[in-house]
């Protein structure tokens, strides 16, 4: 299993055999509070890095989820339609959001490491 990468917008990515799995971080789910619904992108649609690809609604706010890498959506976590709370309960595992086939896998290298992301979140907490 490869190491997770992170974005400043609080998404995580994991590269498994040229397929990138994307979700939101523990910090993000905690900030959002109880998540009540998610609006997915169309499977087979393409996005550029930093495009808005999904919307998460929580009891507090409606938040954009940005596409962390150029590519095509090849799968969505349909379980979340019935159980959006999985994002709260298991953000790094059962609460994954989309699978992307990256068109420029090199972009992964420019994203944050776990350590860099933890530092960023540490600053936000103050």
């Amino acid at each position, binding site marked *: 299993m490869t190491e997770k990468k992170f974005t400043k917008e609080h998404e995580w990515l994991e590269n498994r055999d040229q397929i990138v799995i994307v979700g939101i971080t523990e910090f993000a789910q905690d900030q959002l509070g*109880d998540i*009540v*619904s998610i609006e997915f992108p169309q499977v087979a649609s393409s996005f550029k890095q930093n495009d808005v690809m999904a919307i998460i*609604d929580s*009891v*507090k*706010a409606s938040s954009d989820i940005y596409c962390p890498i150029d590519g095509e959506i090849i799968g969505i976590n349909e379980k979340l339609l019935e159980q*959006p*709370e999985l994002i709260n309960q298991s953000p790094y595992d059962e609460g994954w959001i989309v699978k992307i086939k990256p068109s420029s896998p090199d972009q992964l290298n420019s994203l944050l490491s776990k350590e860099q992301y933890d530092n960023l979140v540490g600053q936000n907490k103050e």
Partner: protein
Amino acid sequence: MKLIFNYNQSNTNHTPQENDVDLPEELKRGSLPLNDVNEIQIIRHYTELSRKNYGIDTNFYPLGSCTMKYNPRVNEDIAKLPGFSNIHPHTPANHAQGALEVIWELEEILKEITGMDAFSLQPAAGSQSELLGVMIAKKYFAEKNETRTKIIIPDSAHGTNPATAAMCKFQTVTIPTDKRGNMDIDEFKKAIGKDIAVVMITNPNTLGLYEENLSEIKNIAKENGALMYCDGANMNALLGISKPADQGFDMIHLNLHKTFSTPHGGGGPGGGSLGVKLFLEDYLPIPRIKKENEKFVFDSNKEKSVGKLHSFYGNFGIIVRALTYIKSWGVDIQKISQIAVLNANYLFCLLKDDFDVPYDRRCAHEFVISAKNFGEKSTINIAKRIIDYGFHAPTIYFPLIVKEALMIEPTETESKETLDEYAKVLKTIIKELQEEPELVKNAPHTTPGRLDEVKAARKLNLRWIPNES
């Protein structure tokens, strides 16, 4: 309390029977499970329901940024006059001079209050007024052949501001709030440029604080050719005291139904309005109302106008109420804001030692305190517990930049006794949180149960289905 469907007085036979109506077969429904209920039972049922309602007429309702002020009955008396309430929207202008004069006069007064050069009362709400303002900005820059794609909005703004920007296909650039509760001027300077169409600012902002750097912001915006838009939803702090046009704004919207009474539209439609500087007047929606040789006429001959925004001319009933309200205050209008600000500061001072105060400054018409020191989710628990003491909760968890926020706007119509009582209730609840936390966590205890807003959002169910309850 019983649902109307649970009454069973089947001896009245008032429910229409299938053979009463001559309908084609395919239009007839299989069953219609309405119970027969006699007239007095219906009256009792709905009277009981109405008594469960909570409104500004029953008790204090300090929702932040909603300006829940008393709705003077004289407004209703005037709005009910047959000349106003029975007038048909198709009445020709020369037979509707009084109604047109009401609209024209309110526009004139709002010009005076805001310092703007022209007003339209056509928008139906604050949000639609914003939409109009940004549509005007879009058209204005298109005609100047300038490509501007972004709108600057501070992170303390009303949620409608970025929504409006998105509706008009602009990108939002969010500016953080600084330690004093103002839009961070250094971040603003980094974000401003020739691609910014509008700087959209709520003043006072949703923290209840007056933006202190407005004149610098205005100068920088002007240097870059951007328009200054004021979300005037919080104008209850500034009536007769400061004019948004003098603060550097090119446009402002006012919510007729909150600043000028009839909060939340009094249960009916609300009313918006948009004021602009002279150079933007021609973009206002048609028809405009014009005074020509002592007569009032509709003028639709405006080439640059963004078009029509609302059927006929706005929500006329709210226009009548707003004018009545302003006229009953007359030149004393600034007392509204003076007392609203005084009330907010008084209640703020009563509570500031008990709560965390994210921005400790003299507030305007409302203030924001935080319950974060009492632990996570304490704000929702406090809000629920307030219900047990017979009061309405304030706005909670907004603005989003303050953790465990309580946003309180008492308005000018509340007495010192009410404010004292509300502060006492909040202090009591804090004591309970420390001594009997379960009592607060499981509140309210005086209602049929504790509503679960998460479940309500996840499994929304508004429909009654026979045999389910």
